[in-house]
């Protein structure tokens, strides 16, 4: 899997900041403007390399499509699509011109439900991944920066979380807390951070061993300055790639928890739809059209995030040998 070599500089990473006195800057271009130019250039370079990964571009377009569907859902289907009381169709109708994907056991349009469900599934996936990566980056950077007992304790905890079966822990957490979206986000977030913490810590150690950090310290830069100004920008590309990959597993985890009946019963999500289908007896009745669309939606979005994440990873670290 990912093997980042700390001696191999990341490709999008900027060179160490140049002090104004060393580089005679042209008039009007202060260090800030220079930094922005540099960032724009490396972003352009990143995009150029990313474009050559066909799978990554495919993933990105699929994500754009789903994001569009989720954002425009209030206009296209509206929130009354999930209302059980005045459902437009009869229960369990097969796909027809009026209901392209059929109806559920309450007579609600499945197409509408799948479109509406994308909002919850994407939102939970995103927030859980952001929470997970934030915890992981925080612990990784601090454990890499402050050596000694703090790092030892933190890495022990990380190791312990790493050997725990993630889903079992998430299920246990979701069981003991109340049924809500917040619970699901928290359960996924606090169980999936350890891989990020390990990766970020390794990268932090690599960055901190470089001479320019010593220089920053010698000039009086404190812990906060070194971590936020020097380490964080350097681990950011890694953190981004990691976020993309974790969103995909977070979406799968959300669907799984919802399927096991641990989700918020008042909102529609793809995993929840599958649970409804199973409880309504769609499986034994052979009503495949009830089950197929939510599952495909989950799979496509999870795959799209995985493809994007792998493309980002291989742009940042060409040694990985991910094929284009």
């Amino acid at each position: 899997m990912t093997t980042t070599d700390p001696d191999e500089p990341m490709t999008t990473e900027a060179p160490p900041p140049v002090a104004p006195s060393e580089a005679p800057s042209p008039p009007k271009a202060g260090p800030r403007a220079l930094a922005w130019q540099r960032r724009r250039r490396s972003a352009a370079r990143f995009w150029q390399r990313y474009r050559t990964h066909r799978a990554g571009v495919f993933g990105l377009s699929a994500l754009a499509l789903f994001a569009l569907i989720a954002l425009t859902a209030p206009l296209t289907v509206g929130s009354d699509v999930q209302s059980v009381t005045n459902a437009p169709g009869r229960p369990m109708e097969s796909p027809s011109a009026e209901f392209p994907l059929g109806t559920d056991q309450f007579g609600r349009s499945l197409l509408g439900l799948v479109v509406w469900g994308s909002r919850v599934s994407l939102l939970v996936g995103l927030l859980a991944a952001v929470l997970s990566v934030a915890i992981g980056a925080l612990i990784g950077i601090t454990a890499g920066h402050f050596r000694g007992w703090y790092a030892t304790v933190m890495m022990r905890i990380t190791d312990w979380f790493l050997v725990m079966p993630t889903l079992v822990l998430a299920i246990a957490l979701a069981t003991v807390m109340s049924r809500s979206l917040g619970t699901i986000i928290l359960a996924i977030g606090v169980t999936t951070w350890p891989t990020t913490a390990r990766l970020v810590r390794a990268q932090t150690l690599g960055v901190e061993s470089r001479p320019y950090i010593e220089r920053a310290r010698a000039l009086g830069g404190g812990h906060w300055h070194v971590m936020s100004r020097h380490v964080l920008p350097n681990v950011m590309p890694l953190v981004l790639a990691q976020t993309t990959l974790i969103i995909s597993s977070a979406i799968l985890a959300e669907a799984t928890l919802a399927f096991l009946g641990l989700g918020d019963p008042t909102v529609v999500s793809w995993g929840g739809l599958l649970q409804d289908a199973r409880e309504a007896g769609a499986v034994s009745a052979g009503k495949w059209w009830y089950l197929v669309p939510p599952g495909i939606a989950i799979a496509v979005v999870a795959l799209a995030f995985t493809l994007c994440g792998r493309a980002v990873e291989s742009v940042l670290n060409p040694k990985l040998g991910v094929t284009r």
Partner: protein
Amino acid sequence: MTAEATPPLVGKTDGRAPAGPSVRGPRVRTTAGYPRYVAGKLGGAAVSLLAVLVTSFFLFRLIPGDPVKFMTGGRQVSAEQLAAYRREFGLDLPMWEQFTDYCGKALTGDLGTSYQFRAPVIDKITEALPNTLLLTGTSFVIYTALGIFLGTRAAWRNGRIGDRLNTGLALTLYSIPSFWLGLLLIIVFAVGIGPIPGLFPTGGMESGDEQGFAYVLDVAHHLVLPVVTLVAVEYGQTLLVTRSALLDEMGSDYLTTARAKGLRDDLVRRRHAVPNALLPTMTLIFINLGRTVAGVILVETVFSWPGLGGLFYQALSVPDLPLVQGLFFVFAAAVIVMNTLADLIYPLLDPRVGR
């Protein structure tokens, strides 16, 4: 490359930091010797198991409200009955007494009494364990073999159409929720769709009236769909790990040497590249067992397989806390034990990791 690819053990910050998301291969000090290494690993595993035990106790005490309310399921119960329930499950004792009680009992194999079945948790677990081992063992052997075989092919033909198809399919299957795949397989192959009749049973482990060899065949018949589901969702991980491990080896000089002395391509791969690439792969395969536990829970739920996963689902829906707690401990312990085994076997397989 093996020794360098493993991240430093906890607390050893040596500046150079080899990274890996979950590559926690063992690092043996050449001077220490194997017995000391084993002792260290076993000690670490014991600490982890203890930590799991402690967590399993406190995690399930986080629950807001009274556990007795869950037991009675909202029925009208008199105060005396509630008190009786509390005494029966030891919930009237102070927290620290409950805790020492729990740890002491757990060490003797007593994990409490299930609210739901009114039976010792440990009995329910030992009852279900063989079924889970049958399902997981069969799938594990198949998906590992398949993953290594296809991963080797994919890496050897890196970038060609076969590799792309292989890797693409593995990634796609990896993104599919296992329970959904299971449900679809039930509809297509067990319930039957259109002209296809139902070929396999929809769930369970046995039809109930078979004896002797017919019974074995019957169980095997029930085993097909769950195993197919598990293999489909799990082999991708092994494939990708094998593939990247082999790609790391591909540029090595010894392979060029092997080719230069005139070995056939096939032999170079089989005798030289694959054995070396399999070493890091093995550690990861064992670490990924944690993922397999998740897959097993879902697949057993979907196929009503009478194993630990199915039991976990039943316990969750109540929620039957002692049972959830016991199963949580068993699942975590299984992963820890497997990881420790991998750590112990590893230096025996790789002579470069000194003994």
